[in-house]
């Protein structure tokens, strides 16, 4: 942990109201300011105690505090360094270790995820029983989505009409295996807007899950492979439709010690920059747009997705109250910290419900799964979609 980064904190407390765990519990050690204080204690010689590790684990890594901080504290860097330190020095309970091992041995590997697909329905039904073995297992099973039919994307999707750009596309691990329809929609929207879309084979997982959990070695290994795949494809721009992946890939220079040699953009960022060319067909639907933390806070992308959605005739966009507060999904958080994640999910479900919208749109698969599960618990099930799917429906003139 870099003491210089720690000393940037002037203890003003402006981060507190944006921190999901402070919102839940109101305790200093579960706020960014308190966690930075804990980091400082550690740097000054206090060993990582189980209590200390618990407060770091309880951080969602949503980066809302980074947005709120007037002093420019790089809490994102700090918590990543801290998680790595916790992984290195802190010995976890054996059952927790087993669940962590399972998650990090599974999620970053699309092929392993693929094997799970047929069992997802059963897993959902088994969730209460699995929860008895370990709350994390139960939470993981409870989140299992209804998966769409597998759709293989070709290596190259040609632009419709005049070609305006050539881009690479990240297919991701969870996105690709559990939400193949989102990737298909992304490729179609890009093509309809005049982009040649290159989908290189062997890109694998970008390393986001690992980097956010302090497993930097695994992250580097995965990131190198992803970089190699896109370099080989020779693209200058890589479009990403999952917020967590995009924010990690934008920081590759920091992770790998060298710039990847291509620009990483979020889908909405890219489309807004490109400007609309294809015709938008009307979609008469009310939409609540959810800011994924890794898009809004980590990448600062807030206006573009809203702009794209508002550009669809007939679509009514509604703002979710307290939109800056995380939904509790946060990568693997809802698996490792199921209770806090559930409470945050419930808060978010209420906020989304208060908009009265028919459709919930977000740019991150984790958020979508989390909020949809929370809304089901509330008995207020809501349809969910990725920004790409909404645009795809409008561009093609089909229903959602």
């Amino acid at each position: 942990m870099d003491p210089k980064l720690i000393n940037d904190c002037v203890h003003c407390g402006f981060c507190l109201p944006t921190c999901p765990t402070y919102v839940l519990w109101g305790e200093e050690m579960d706020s960014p300011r308190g966690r930075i204080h804990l980091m400082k204690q550690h740097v000054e010689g206090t060993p990582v105690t189980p209590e200390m590790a618990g407060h770091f684990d309880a951080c969602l890594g949503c980066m809302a505090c980074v947005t709120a901080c007037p002093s420019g504290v790089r809490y994102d860097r700090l918590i990543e360094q801290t998680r790595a330190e916790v992984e290195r020095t802190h010995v976890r309970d054996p059952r927790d270790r087993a669940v962590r091992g399972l998650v990090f041995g599974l999620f970053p590997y699309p092929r392993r995820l693929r094997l799970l697909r047929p069992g997802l329905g059963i897993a959902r039904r088994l969730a209460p029983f699995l929860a008895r073995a370990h709350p994390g297992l139960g939470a993981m099973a409870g989140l299992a989505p209804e998966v769409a039919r597998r759709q293989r994307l070709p290596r190259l999707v040609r632009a419709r009409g005049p070609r305006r750009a050539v881009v690479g596309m990240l297919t991701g691990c969870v996105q690709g295996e559990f939400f193949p329809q989102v990737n298909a929609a992304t490729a179609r929207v890009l093509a309809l807007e005049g982009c040649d879309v290159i989908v290189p084979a062997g890109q694998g997982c970008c390393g986001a899950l690992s980097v956010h959990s302090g497993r930097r070695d695994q992250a580097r290994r995965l990131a190198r492979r992803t970089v190699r795949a896109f370099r080989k494809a020779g693209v200058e721009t890589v479009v990403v439709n999952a917020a967590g992946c995009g924010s990690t890939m934008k920081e590759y220079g920091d992770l790998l010690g060298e710039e990847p040699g291509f620009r990483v953009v979020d889908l909405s960022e890219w489309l807004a920059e490109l400007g609309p060319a294809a015709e938008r067909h009307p979609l008469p639907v009310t939409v609540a747009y959810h800011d994924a933390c890794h898009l809004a806070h980590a990448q600062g992308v807030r206006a573009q997705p809203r702009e794209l959605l508002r550009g669809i005739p007939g679509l009514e966009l509604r703002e979710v109250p307290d939109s800056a507060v995380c939904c509790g999904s946060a990568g693997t958080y809802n698996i490792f910290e199921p209770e806090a994640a559930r409470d945050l999910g419930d808060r978010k479900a209420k906020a989304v419900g208060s908009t009265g919208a028919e459709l919930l749109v977000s740019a991150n698969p984790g958020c979508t799964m989390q909020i949809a599960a929370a809304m089901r618990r509330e008995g207020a099930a809501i349809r969910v979609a990725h920004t790409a799917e909404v645009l795809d429906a409008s561009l093609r003139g089909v229903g959602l």
Partner: protein
Amino acid sequence: MLDELTAALAGILPADSVITDPVRLRTYECDGLTYHRATPGVVVLPETAEQVAAVVRLCREAGVPFVARGSGTGLSGGALPREDGVLIVTSKMRRILEIDLPDRRAVVEPGVTNLAITEAVRDQGYYYAPDPSSQQICSIGGNVAENSGGAHCLKYGFTVNHVEACEIVTPDGDLVTLDRMDPGYDLLGAFVGSEGTLGIATKITVRLSRAPEAVTTVLAAFESIERGGEAVSAIIGAGIVPAAIEMMDALAIEAAEAAVACDYPRGAGAVLIVELDGPAQEVERQFAQLREICSGAFELRVAAGAEERAAIWKGRKSAFAAVGRISPAYIVQDGVVPRTALPRVLAEIDRLSAEHGIRVANVFHAGDGNLHPLVLFDDAEPGAGERAETVSGAILDLCIAHGGSITGEHGVGVDKAKHMPRMFSPDDLDTMQLVRCAFDPAGLSNPGKVFPTPRLCGEVPGVRKGAHPLVESGKAEQF
């Protein structure tokens, strides 16, 4: 003694509301002023007024001092814990209990943030007027303790003008309500701003204000701070009472630019933020006057809507923390001078700064002469901290010399207790102690704050044995 008390506390509070783990305790060692630190003996996080009262009663019985803390954003160390005491944190008491729009009041728990009140009633066209820069996080309980101000207090007054009633836990552990409407002594007036020395507020009835019909926010850029200062005097001289007049100098602007890219006019020696509000016609007329008064400004920007207004304010409200971008360490000072003395005092601050080789950024509520000099230094440089302290103290002397005060809104706390004798005679301080002793004869409620040295009953923790010296000598009566 503390161990026994901790066991007793655990008996009356939920297990996770009593913190004894040393690592956790240390995160409470300071508030917004990090210069003073003390790890609390034990931290409790009560959720109800009854729990606060029960905690205070246990402390009184054990003769252990206690300190209340809200969000921990105070800038005078008012919530600095006691190593031998209990820190009572109100951050779990954050329910808005009642909103009564016809009577324009809201009843809230002390941990509710200042901004949360406004957010709860904004859609209905109301707001809570006092607006400290930390309003999104500072708690209303802390605002009451410090009698907090804010940019808009020039026109609308401080916290004390917006609190109708307080339910408090007295240092004896009794729950009593102080109401503005009570006949007799204005005990509520005495309580607001007492910095935690007279008890702990557990329920606060605040006044809600009607949002003004029109608001015009103007950003005026001047070549020099003197020009800006002249404009301030001219505005007030013309009989205009704007909702706010704020000034920032070049260094403060630089910091704010670095932090939030507020995009203030380039090359400004000072900017003034003037906000006019009220009935549309009045605002319009005042704006015309203001335009004329500010003719010396090289740029005059008028916010077109709520978004542009927020952008202008963002630079000002983030200024304190933003200074972290241009300096490794700094002291936030808070002093008051008569408005007319502003140009002279600023010139002297400039001289002090040059003399000691210490940069000073100035951000202030110009309308009421409330200065917030930010004294910048590098804590890695030997001796720099001491020089900064010297400059910071000298600025307060300047304020006193010009007929001002050592604090405008941040409170005395632990930080300025030593300056109190420069403003007040021993007799003055003794008289204040009498008030304090009327509420807290044992001196357990936030001891060590406000008053410079242990005098009379005040500052020695432990139950007072025997009568107060002033009572004994027949000079005072205890009630």
